[in-house]
């Protein structure tokens, strides 16, 4: 028998529903608290911290070399730029000039990481929208990049490869050839991405005009990376403050001004083409030389405060190190791109459906460990 229950009357009563932490489309342990009216979302409250590991606290009791392996675990989908950010910051503080070979290899690795990350984003975004096949096509191509990584550094995801002063070890002799094989392969496969998803009428309907983020809001919320560039926010650190070898390669900063989910999608697809262009330019120009600068076994940063930002696959990663001249830092702060990107979601998702919220959070390309640190 149906027992008597109190039924809440009134249309304006919010229907509160939890999305996450155990939800397939939050890509990890993120929780959205949604207030619904029918299916329309009128408030999103993100809750994070489910995998807060206190990396910033741990850094305070680690030497600068040891910090590297912690940064891998922030944005684990493209670990190189994280390592690079800390390394660049330490090198800047010490006033070390790394060899040219290191610079070029670091740039190549960053771009490979960006490609791998965007591929995985494409898989997951397709899956968020219900096109499950994209997941396997993207992973198939990502596997090729991970093989390159595995051959040179012995690990596929968390490399800890770029270290203060240079690289952990020299790249594998096959490194060049593998990249040369990969580029034509992926040039052939990338149009398939467009045929499968970008051109699809259902996909366009699902993503156009959804999750509008104006330029002012993008800047104010600090939404960087492809998500910000989809709103026309020219925030590419590779262009504005070039590091490593980015000042000598020719590439475009992809900017779309629509600011909707489809624009963010197209930025990333276009960035994959740009990354391949960068790789093509650099792969033949890896100079010979040492793979690391001369470093003392124990790095002691001179007293001061140092800030370095790099462009990861998701936006601007800033590393802020405060040193007291000791071998341990006083404070390390990571300004992670996803942290800022996430909190724009309430602004973007209000008034849309649940399904759109999934699309929006997918288009922001959230990596939860990067938010929680």
């Amino acid at each position: 028998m149906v027992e008597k229950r109190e039924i809440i009357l009134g249309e304006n009563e919010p229907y509160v529903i939890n999305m996450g932490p155990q939800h397939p489309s939050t890509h990890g342990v993120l929780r959205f608290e949604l207030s619904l009216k029918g299916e329309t979302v009128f408030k999103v409250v993100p809750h994070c911290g489910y995998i807060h590991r206190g990396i910033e606290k741990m850094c305070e009791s680690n030497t600068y070399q040891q910090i590297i392996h912690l940064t891998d675990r922030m944005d684990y989908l493209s670990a190189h730029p994280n390592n690079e950010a800390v390394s660049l910051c330490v090198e800047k503080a010490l006033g070390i000039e790394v060899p040219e070979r290191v610079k070029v290899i670091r740039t190549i690795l960053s771009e490979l990481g960006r490609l791998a990350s965007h591929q995985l984003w494409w898989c997951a975004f397709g899956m968020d929208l219900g096109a499950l096949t994209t997941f396997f096509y993207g992973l198939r191509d990502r596997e090729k990049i991970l093989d390159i990584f595995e051959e040179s550094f012995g690990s596929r995801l968390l490399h800890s490869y770029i270290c203060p002063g240079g690289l952990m070890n020299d790249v594998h002799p096959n490194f060049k050839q593998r990249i040369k094989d990969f580029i034509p392969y992926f040039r052939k496969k990338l149009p398939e991405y467009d045929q499968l998803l970008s051109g699809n009428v259902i996909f366009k309907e699902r993503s156009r005009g959804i999750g509008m983020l104006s330029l002012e809001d993008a800047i104010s919320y600090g939404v960087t990376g492809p998500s910000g560039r989809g709103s026309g926010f020219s925030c590419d650190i590779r262009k504005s403050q070039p590091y490593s070898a980015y000042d000598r390669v020719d590439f475009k900063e992809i900017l779309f001004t629509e600011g909707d989910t489809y624009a963010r999608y197209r930025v990333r697809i276009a960035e994959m083409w740009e990354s391949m262009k960068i790789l093509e330019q650099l792969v033949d120009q890896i100079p010979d030389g040492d793979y690391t600068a001369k470093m003392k076994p124990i790095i002691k940063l001179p007293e001061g405060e140092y800030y370095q930002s790099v462009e990861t696959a998701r936006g601007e990663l800033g590393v802020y190190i405060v040193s007291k001249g000791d071998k341990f830092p006083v404070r390390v702060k990571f300004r992670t791109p996803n942290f800022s990107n996430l909190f724009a979601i309430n602004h973007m998702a209000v008034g849309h459906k649940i399904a759109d919220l999934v699309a929006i959070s997918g288009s922001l390309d959230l990596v939860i460990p990067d938010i929680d640190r």
Partner: protein
Amino acid sequence: MSSESLVLFFIIGVVLVGGAVLFSNYFAPKSSNPAKLEPYECGIPVKDGSWIQFNVGYYLFSIIYLVFDVEIVFIYPWGTVMKDVGLTAFIEIVIFFVILGLGLAYAWKKKALTWV
């Protein structure tokens, strides 16, 4: 043997589902745990009940559906005799469809077909 088969298939269905459920109830291992009986809401304890009055967006569609479905029930017998009756049937159905179409256009115009 035709109409009695309807009962037969009903019985097959009951036997199939009921048998499997009984089997499972009898043989499957059991363990009790208060957390297991919580309704799923992504691992968060549920706030409020889930049974509330729901948005009318769904309701409006069922009303329109009801209108159209009844019409379709009327069209079916027409469909079977269309060949034999000929022109009269054709003219009748055109008139009928114009009225139906007007109804649809009205609903369209009144934004009853947009999701709220």
